[in-house]
């Protein structure tokens, strides 16, 4: 039996021997086969040479496994969101490799840089070594240096939109670099939004205290809970407003809701297309500056589009992968 098996594994079993093997296997219970296989495995009695193609495949497989063990679902309702969050908080760990090595090399980061990245239509939660939790909205990127983080300093780079729950450590302040804006905190929770294609960065503070520094003017302000801070990345000006209620709208994306307050239609469209990871275009007849106030669902595209249709008297047309908004005929 063993000899036949070895011949089979080496790939030089003949038809006659195969028939013999089949006949023997028929009467062999799985439990015994289990032991035979276990012995071969334990004693390394099998050819281990694999091709270079296989090595490539194994590397891809590793990425896939890491990706699967740290990805959050992109569509969920409130209940599944919380269940998923509960399960994910167990699954996700300090180091979340969301990206493939290909992307790391292309952005020229050193091997010690850890980057968590979401694409359009994706969300993720990053757990940093110091216990800080960052929930990331679509098309966002968080980077930190694995070797120095939580030892000499707590510095991260961030782009996009994220909800930060920074763990308390007065001796090592947490610093976020978002373009020309530096956010300095000790232990708080807040929503930060900075998209490279927009001029304004916004931070809404829920608890604790935060210090903002403008890299252009050198100005430095403190933000209190309930305040919304604006940073203009062109002029470098920092401004702070008390907005205990409307400011909270900034964090509603975490409940899968997109809240707009007198926002131009063009902004609404860009948020929707980022959130769902699809292309949305507007026909020339529509004024992109039309204001919209309301809440759109982040997990139901048809519903969201329907709301826009009714509000503005539009019709949506879907062709290919894009959604087109045209005026009602």
């Amino acid at each position, binding site marked *: 039996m063993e000899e036949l098996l070895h011949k089979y594994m080496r790939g030089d079993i*003949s038809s006659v021997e195969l028939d013999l093997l089949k006949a023997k296997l028929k009467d062999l219970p799985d439990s015994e086969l289990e032991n035979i296989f276990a012995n071969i495995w334990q004693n390394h009695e099998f050819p281990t040479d694999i091709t270079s193609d296989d090595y490539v495949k*194994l590397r891809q497989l590793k990425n896939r496994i890491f990706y699967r063990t740290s990805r959050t679902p992109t569509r969920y309702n409130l209940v599944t969101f919380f269940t998923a969050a509960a399960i994910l908080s167990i699954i996700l760990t300090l180091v979340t490799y969301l990206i493939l090595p290909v992307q790391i090399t292309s952005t020229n980061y050193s091997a010690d840089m850890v980057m968590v990245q979401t694409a359009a239509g994706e969300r993720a939660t990053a757990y940093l070594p110091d216990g800080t939790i960052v929930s990331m909205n679509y098309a966002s990127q968080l980077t930190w240096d694995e070797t120095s983080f939580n030892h000499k300093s707590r510095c991260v780079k961030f782009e996009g939109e994220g909800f930060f729950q920074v763990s308390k450590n007065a001796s090592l302040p947490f610093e976020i670099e978002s373009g020309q804006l530096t956010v300095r905190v000790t232990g708080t929770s807040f929503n930060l939004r900075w998209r490279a294609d927009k001029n304004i960065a916004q931070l809404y503070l829920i608890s604790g205290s935060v210090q903002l520094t403008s890299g252009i003017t050198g100005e430095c302000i403190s933000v209190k809970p309930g305040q919304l801070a604006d940073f203009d990345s062109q002029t470098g000006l920092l401004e702070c407003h008390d907005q205990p209620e409307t400011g909270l709208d900034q964090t509603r994306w975490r409940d899968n809701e997109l809240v707009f307050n007198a926002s131009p239609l063009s902004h609404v469209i860009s948020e929707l297309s980022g959130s769902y990871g699809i292309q949305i275009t507007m026909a020339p007849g529509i004024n992109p500056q039309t204001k919209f106030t309301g809440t759109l669902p982040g997990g139901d595209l048809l519903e969201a589009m329907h709301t826009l249709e009714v509000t503005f008297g539009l019709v949506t047309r879907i062709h290919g992968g894009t959604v087109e908004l045209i005026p009602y005929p």
Partner: protein
Amino acid sequence: MDTRTETKLIIELKLGSKKALGSIYDAYASELYAYCVCLTKRREDAEEIVQDVFMQLWLDRTKIRSEHTLRNLLYIMAKHRLINSFRATVNAPVFEAYTSYTDTIISPDAEPMEYDEFYRLFLKAIKRLPLKQQKIVRMSKIRHLSNKEIAHTLSLSEQTVKNQLSTGMKQLRAMLLKLMTLLIIIQQSLILLIISYNQIYS
């Protein structure tokens, strides 16, 4: 891997370290994969088994008991799928066809094509059959249904199934033979080419 590193890795893994998972993968994945390929002869199966094993290792990491070595543990997680897939390959009619093909290659220079490749060729060849025969051949040779079962699901008589199967297989054999001789000719001519190339330049 020595026992101390291993114990350390298991502890780190239980604490939720992805890095530990990565180190375990680097140490064992290629060997496990090679073993699965040896036994299942199918790279797709091997890949799936490796993926499932490491996903399970991660998801069930808190349940790991200390008396097992990692080597042990990985095998325990792989064994059921491994045995099923092994039995499926050994008993597959396509594998039988494959062995009779490898029997024909006596020359030690000509590496026979691997089973994976053979299997793909077989699936390709099936597609050239008339639709009804395709269905019947697939049900019989890939899903291992009996003629009676096939007759029942397709509401045909058992005799029709038998007839269709035999004409289908006859055609398949002819096609595979053609494809294989072509492949063997290509392989042989490549070898000849290499030999003559070496002779000219040495």
